[in-house]
């Protein structure tokens, strides 16, 4: 007992002497985006345990300061300010696109590197003076739209229809999908909108069906994406139905049931990790993450969103180790933050759960299309790998 205490004391003292590395985390653990934010928070809680066991990074203790933004932009910005003042070396988060965009000016002003967990390309593109400090791990709509259009072309689709949310999510998808479809010679015959809270999309569905497209893409996320698909099925639409990766959670399957059988969607490869071919680069890392997560939170509990958080740490950890060799954060925090940012940008060929990251000065997403997107089909209420793009 005494020896154990002494060891603990020595550890604590050395941590004191060295200074704990604080990493700020902002996620939407409550509010409408909670089904995405909770697995992200869980992932960091799991990482905290892991790091406490391993004794941190390069001999320094690491502490994640996890704050909840309640899916609210104002709260996310306030959290970011607080984290900056607490002296974090980097910030990971947040879950949603609008809140992530709101955080950018704050981290840029304080010169703290940030890795966002939200989808939109606008967070990291173009890399200007502010986005200089910002990176992100999830695939963009643009990248996933490419996967959908490639799949459509491979299936001989000539005409497509689109129906999406009447908000930033749906508009973003409409923009990237329609541009990509036109570029690949597909004809977009209808583009409709609906609201997350709508109780009926009969009008839009009838209009889509009247134009007879070979395939329809539904640009929506979560369970509200079920409604148009069900209406299309009920009105006897015979063609292919595509969804976005925003539906890749178990709730979509639960609410959709029989109506979403056969749905095609692009997804991060981790969604079907065990079905990937053995040569797929991210397979081993993804399975490792899933095994750890399920060991802690139960079988079938993992989601692709938590894996984005895991990827952020996979990027951050080696960058921290390299930056620690250059600058001592206890002596000069702002120089360390700048060095850390440079080291994140220097990340090359890093295999993570969702693909392989290689950042450059112009590309702060760094995912290669072939490794970061696969096509998945809903079969008997499960995700089934349809094709990879390698």
């Amino acid at each position, binding site marked *: 007992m005494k020896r154990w205490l002494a060891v603990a004391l020595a550890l604590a003292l050395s941590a004191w002497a060295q200074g704990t590395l604080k990493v700020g985390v902002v996620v939407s653990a409550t509010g409408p985006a909670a089904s995405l934010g909770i697995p992200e928070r869980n992932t960091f809680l799991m990482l905290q345990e892991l790091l406490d066991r391993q004794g941190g990074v390069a001999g320094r203790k690491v502490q994640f300061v996890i704050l909840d933004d309640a899916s609210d932009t104002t709260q996310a910005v306030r959290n970011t300010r607080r984290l900056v003042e607490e002296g974090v070396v980097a910030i990971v988060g947040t879950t949603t696109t609008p809140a992530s965009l709101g955080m950018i000016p704050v981290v840029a002003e304080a010169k703290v590197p940030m890795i966002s967990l939200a989808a939109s390309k606008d967070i990291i593109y173009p890399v200007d003076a502010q986005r200089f400090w910002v990176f992100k791990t999830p695939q963009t709509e643009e990248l996933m739209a490419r996967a959908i259009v490639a799949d459509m072309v491979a299936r001989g689709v000539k005409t497509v229809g689109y*129906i999406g949310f009447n908000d930033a999510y749906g508009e973003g998808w409409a923009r990237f999908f329609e541009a990509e479809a036109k570029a690949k010679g597909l004809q977009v015959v209808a583009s409709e909108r609906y609201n997350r*809270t709508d109780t*009926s*999309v*009969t*009008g*839009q569905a009838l209009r889509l069906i009247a134009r007879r497209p070979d395939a329809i893409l539904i640009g929506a996320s979560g369970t509200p994406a079920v409604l148009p698909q069900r209406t299309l099925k009920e009105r006897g639409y015979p063609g292919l139905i595509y969804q976005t990766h925003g539906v890749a959670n178990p709730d979509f399957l639960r609410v959709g*049931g029989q109506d979403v059988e056969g749905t095609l969607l692009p997804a991060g490869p981790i969604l079907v990790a065990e079905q990937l071919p053995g040569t797929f680069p991210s397979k081993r890392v993804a399975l490792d993450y899933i095994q750890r997560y399920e060991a802690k939170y139960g079988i079938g509990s993992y989601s692709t969103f938590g894996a984005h958080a895991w990827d952020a740490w996979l990027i951050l950890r080696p960058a921290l180790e390299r930056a620690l060799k250059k600058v001592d954060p206890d002596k000069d925090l702002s120089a360390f933050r700048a060095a850390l940012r440079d080291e994140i940008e220097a990340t090359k060929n890093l295999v993570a759960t969702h693909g392989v990251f290689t950042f450059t000065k112009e590309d702060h997403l760094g995912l290669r299309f072939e490794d970061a997107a696969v096509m998945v089909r809903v079969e008997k209420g499960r995700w089934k790998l349809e094709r990879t793009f390698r």
Partner: protein
Amino acid sequence: MDASILGFLLLDGLQNGVIYGLLAIAMVLVFAVTRVILVPIGELLMFAPLSLVWLLEGKIPGTLWLALVLGLVWAGVARGRGALGPILGALGLSALFFLALFLKPLAYPAAVLLVVYLGVATYRVFFQPMREATVLSLLIMAVGLHVAYQGLGLVFFGPEQFRPEPLLRGEVVVGLSWQGVLVLLFALLSVLGLYAFFRFSLYGKALLAAAESRLGARLTGISPEEAGMVAFGIASLMAGLSGLLLAPLINAAYFMGFMLGLKGFVAAILGGLASYPVAFLGALLVGFFESFTSFFASAYKEALVFLLLVPALFYQSLKARAVEE
């Protein structure tokens, strides 16, 4: 656009319209008796199917605790003999909920009674103490309750949607399911029932009297407080039943209430917040208008629906005399 598309759009508009119509009637009723614009009616509607889903899965929904807390406050403000009603109600409700965990069919009445209890308690706790306040203060309270209840809905039921099993499966004709027929039947029955209630029953007549003149009603021995409770009870009963019937068609979620309530409100405004038949017709108009705009200009649907308010309010403003509040 051909005949079959026209038919689908009309059916769709009808199905949505009657629900807006029921909510509009409930709002007109509550407004006439208590001068409260019942914004949280959408949340009352939403609580019913979600509580049902929770009960069917063998869990006690958080809405029961909300109802019990409100009931406790109700008993507190009522004191004395008046406290007996809410306490008995709370006990009965809890007993029903625990029974419903084992006897699934009981979950349906449990969910509806919960919403009714919640509605009446809401009136007693929040609105009755403000009975002398201006319409504006009452509206502010109503909006506050709407935000609070929606937030509680998110806490109780999470961000995702749920889909209870329909009571009746299958389609009658293409585009109209048996569940949709149930909704239409329910609307017809409630309209007839309300008519009979106001026309023939003493309670109904008393409500009308209270709506006509609070002072006059009091002079003839009608308690405006009791009238308010009855009005809230009827409104929440209609909301709860509509919610239960609608949920299998539209997927229930914590955010579903607001838009339904708002469109009911648009319809009620079309009826000048005074006329039941005009409010119901207005609701059908909103339903048809919505289904046709979603066909022709889906991106602008909501904007166009709410634009319907402009001519109606303009007309009202021509009719109304200026009143200083």
